[in-house]
């Protein structure tokens, strides 16, 4: 479904990606793990058109979306949930969700308001509340829900657990499991490797802008190197 080939990206002389190839198939949840600054977010941002690559290609289904602008990429149904819970704070929860519909660009919605509220019931309770006044966990749910309103065929998630309390993280990941069960394809960037490997089918390990390892998440979780480097605390 998503095919990234030999992607190279650099910001002001510093190479963030040094030839990354990876793919995501329909219905899969794929995780990208690796240390801070390894290039996980750069890869995600290049796929969604925030960052333009030096070379390489990003194919989504039959189309080439390499270097397309961010709002053009959404037309294909590739939607990123950005890091750091970027809700539209001055707008209500409902208005945030309505803005999400912009990403449809005339495509048929895959999640209607009620479907989204079924996954995140708290948002229905808070629908008239200003998004900026929600708790961190609720804001994270809102940005995921907002992307769902845009009819994602591939959902890119950037660090959904960042800065959230453990009990909230498990709520968010329960919701992601529910979305996965409904057939949504997800590409997940996550620093918490344990969490990422538990939630995904396959994973790539990125270090210094290169893919170091890839494979089924279950196998990677048992891999001695991965265990030592990323699951040390377990």
């Amino acid at each position, binding site marked *: 479904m998503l095919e990234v080939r030999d992607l190279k990206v650099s910001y002001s002389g510093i190479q963030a990606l040094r030839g990354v190839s990876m793919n995501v198939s329909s219905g899969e949840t794929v995780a990208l793990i690796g240390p801070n600054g390894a290039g996980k977010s750069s890869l995600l941002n290049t796929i969604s058109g925030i960052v333009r690559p030096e070379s390489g290609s990003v194919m989504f289904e039959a189309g080439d979306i390499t270097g397309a602008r961010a709002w053009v990429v959404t037309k294909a149904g590739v939607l990123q*949930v*950005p890091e750091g819970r*970027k809700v*539209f704070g001055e*707008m209500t929860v409902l*208005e945030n969700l309505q*803005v999400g519909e912009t990403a449809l660009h005339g495509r048929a919605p895959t999640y209607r308001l009620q479907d989204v509220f079924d996954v995140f019931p708290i948002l229905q309770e808070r629908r008239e509340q200003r998004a900026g006044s929600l708790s961190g966990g609720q804001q994270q749910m809102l940005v995921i829900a907002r992307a769902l309103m*845009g009819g994602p065929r591939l959902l890119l998630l950037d660090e959904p657990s960042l800065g959230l309390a453990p009990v909230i993280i498990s709520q968010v990941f329960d919701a992601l499991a529910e979305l996965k069960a409904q057939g949504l394809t997800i590409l997940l960037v996550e620093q918490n490797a344990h969490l990422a490997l538990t939630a995904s089918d396959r994973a790539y390990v990125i270090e210094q802008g290169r893919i170091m390892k890839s494979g089924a998440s279950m196998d990677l979780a048992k891999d001695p190197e991965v265990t030592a480097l990323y699951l040390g605390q377990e």
Partner: protein
Amino acid sequence: MLAQQLLNGLVVSGVYALFSLGFTLVFGIQRILNLAHGAIFMTGAMVAFYTVKGGGPLWLGFILAILASGALSVLVEIVCFRRLRKTGDEEFGGIISSIGAGLVITTIAQQVSSTQVLRFPFETFPVVIFKFWGLRVSMLQLFMAGAAIILVLILGYYVYRTAFGRRIRAVTDNEHAAMLMGINPNFVYSQTYFLAGALAGAAGVLVGLAFNSITFLMGEPYLMFAFAIIILGGLGSIPGALLASLVFGMVQTLTIAYLPSGLTDTIIFASLFLILLVRPHGILGKEDAGNLRGRR
């Protein structure tokens, strides 16, 4: 007498509101002070004048003025700010570049009008005075108040009740996240500048009619007041700009009526300082309103 002054103040406030709403809207979305806004306002008045002079009806002049000012405002954004925004240094650069745009527009207007004061032909707007409850209200005043209220309501509806308005507010809030939701920010900017320019143009026509005096520099004092109004209301805040316009219009009218007229501006700006002492971010302002970096 007081009721009469309050009524006059309301009309003045309406004009200030039309002018400063666009100013604050643009600041809200791009953190840019568009100092060509006064020239755009003046362009509205000029377009209406030349339409009427050319034999067209006033309503046509009004519509053309709104369209031309809106289009000019969009042009200013594309020429002056769009490239500048990519450098990330648009706060200061934008001020300079918009001063330049304002100079270009006013100079063209100066040439076109041969530095003359232009006056609408007699009875362009019928002179009808209504008297009720001891008040004297001209039809022009009613028209000004009506037009201001209707345009403000249209703006409010557009920004707060439509999908387009939600996109404007989304980009105002967080451009990065808005882009990831499929919003093309450049398109949203164009819309916002069109709205801002159209409202300023409408205000220009109303002021041109009210004082029956149109000059290439007529926008400058309004720009100065709009500055004070959006700071008083809270930078980028639409309700704040409305409220501050009302305060300014009223204070100005009342000081002119009851105090030596030379004191008007002194009182207005002194009250601005006093209010800012108590509310440093304006009446309805947010603490981070001027913070460009924090928004990205």
